[in-house]
């Protein structure tokens, strides 16, 4: 039982950054912007969170630093794609390349420096419940935030007026503009929300998942988060489910490596990436359902006529 609990805890820790980053991207994509720079914003958030934590000794300052740098970085993307209508795919790639470079450069001074592990927040009484108590109510800040994020985004998108407008802008920016909705401003905010989430997810990596700085430590998680959004058909609760599926695959292969089953470790390490492809196939093969769910203006440039 204790073994089982331990595995579940690690699954949650591995899933949380995926869920957080994917929730941010989901909002951006719902507004019609495809930001492929998640990986870059995540890694820059990771390194800045780590450095800020090291300087101040407080992981909470680190969390704020991660969020702020992720959001600031996404502004670069916003300026290029929204103001200068640059190609979104290429700009997202630029963001990732720049993020990997900048994080490697500023992180060089803290390679090998021991990190400050964030302590779990134990909720009294609830955490005493057998089995689920220690798993759900004695977690770190990021886990609680990820759940709040999913619930909050779901409420925002489908229950609030502002969320309705955001979806309208993502589905038809032309009509939304004619109705007087602020297309560009909404997209800027959505992109920044995405950046903030990616930065927060990065902070989780360097403060909780492996509390240290390793170059390229995001290891493609930003891209998996992007795939998760497709997997979830742009619906928040499905992001949660998908995130845990990927977390389980990641942890499963680690345990399989530890048990020394017959397969080479590299094949097991490739599993999360292979799983991403398989899942994309399953989700995308029905062209009709994908088309229904995809925000209609996703990735399309918008220039307001004056």
């Amino acid at each position, binding site marked *: 039982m204790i073994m089982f609990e331990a595995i579940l805890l690690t699954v949650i820790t591995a899933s949380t950054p995926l869920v957080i980053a994917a929730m941010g991207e989901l909002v951006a994509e719902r507004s019609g912007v495809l930001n*492929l720079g998640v990986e870059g914003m995540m890694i820059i958030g990771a390194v800045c969170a780590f450095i800020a934590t090291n300087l101040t000794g407080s992981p909470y300052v680190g969390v704020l630093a991660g969020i702020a740098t992720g959001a600031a970085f996404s502004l*670069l993307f916003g*300026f*290029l794609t929204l*103001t*200068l*209508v*640059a*190609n979104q*795919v*290429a*700009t997202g*790639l*630029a*963001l990732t*390349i*720049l*993020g*990997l*470079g*900048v994080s*490697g*450069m500023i992180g*060089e001074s803290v390679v090998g420096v021991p990190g400050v592990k964030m302590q779990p927040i134990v909720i009294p009484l609830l955490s005493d419940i057998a089995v689920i108590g220690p798993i759900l109510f004695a977690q770190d800040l990021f886990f609680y935030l990820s759940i709040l994020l999913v619930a909050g985004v779901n409420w925002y998108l489908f229950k609030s007026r502002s969320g309705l407008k955001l979806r309208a802008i993502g589905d038809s920016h032309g009509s939304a503009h004619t109705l007087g909705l602020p297309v560009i401003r909404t997209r800027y905010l959505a992109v920044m929300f995405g950046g903030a989430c990616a930065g927060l997810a990065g902070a989780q990596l360097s403060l909780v998942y492996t509390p240290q700085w390793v170059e390229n430590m995001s*290891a*493609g998680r930003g*891209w998996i988060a*992007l*795939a998760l959004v*497709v997997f979830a058909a742009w619906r928040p609760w499905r992001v949660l489910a998908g995130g845990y599926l990927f977390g389980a695959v990641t942890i499963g292969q680690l345990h399989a490596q530890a048990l020394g089953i017959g397969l*080479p470790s*590299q*094949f097991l*390490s*490739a599993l999360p*990436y*292979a799983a*991403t*492809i398989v899942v*994309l*196939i399953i989700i*995308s*093969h*029905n*062209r009709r359902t*994908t088309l229904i769910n995809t925000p209609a203006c996703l990735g399309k440039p918008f*220039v307001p006529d*004056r």
Partner: protein
Amino acid sequence: MRIELERRSRQSSLFAIVSPLLALALTVFFGGIMFAMLGKDPVSALFSFFIEPLLEVWSLHELAVKAAPLILIAVGLSVCYRSNNWNIGAEGQFIVGAIVGSILPITFYEWNSPLLLPMMIVMGAIGGAAYGAIPALLKTRFNTNEILTSLMLVYIAQLFLDWLTRGVWKDPAGYNFPQSRSFVSEAVLPEILSSGRAHLGIIFALIAAVAVWFMMRYTLKGFQVVVLGQSERAGRFAGFSSRKMVWFSMMFSGALAGLAGISEVSGSIGHLQPTISPGYGFTAIIVAFLGRLNPLGIIASGFVLALTYLGGEGAQLSIGVSDKVTRVFQGLLLFFVLSCDTLILYKVRIVFDRARNAATKRA
């Protein structure tokens, strides 16, 4: 203050040439600021980064060695991007090309024949094309996003190469180093001049660039690429198949990436090892855009990006900055290229709100 865009009635041919140069200038300028922030004298840092590598014969050879894979991959990617297929997994196709091309010199390591090298090169290109065909198959058959699948395949290819060089293909006489047997001399791509390391790879790259330029400009295939890329509907009316174009562009760019992979392994490295590329497949994306997706422009931009690798290595030694500076420069450059490209299609006006309000009032 706000920035307004006004669509030009036609593309500005002036800015089509000026915008990459402007992007370069901006990158160098901001690079200087970055060096200053790192506490280095910006002028001498920029000098040792961008100029010093050009002053010696051996480093000009190194420039050609690094430009070769970049140009080869980018030329293939330009066809892909022109046709609106987003292959960003060239790094994986590069690796698989290198692996498949190395089958002969590693498994039949005693075999030497003049046929060996041509066979390796063909196999390398086939390997890259086959790996590029996977996202094409998934896109045409299952409607899967090729950006994500081709990228995931990069990680898988890297891990597979790692397994090969630490496992079944590890050199039994290699003191347990994670690398394969060294290639016999018949399997090594010859150098073009006796003065340095530049090998036939750069010749392949130049030939590929000119051939693709010809294809894009003068052949029906090139026309199909452009039409389908700009409007799938228009292409369909013309009787062009967008499904076939997915296959063609992904396999074509994969083949060139694979060719780059085997050229790199047999020309510069001489054996397989866990890491064979400093991110050529990703940097080639920047090369393609800086060259404005034009094969001849890509030749020039390939050398520029090759210079950033060389400058990074040099600057590490001479002024003691991290070689990560290379990546930062590359990222900055792509940013500026993309923003300057706006000038080709749009007039950019900076409007100050006060002036704008006054103008509206008058109207």
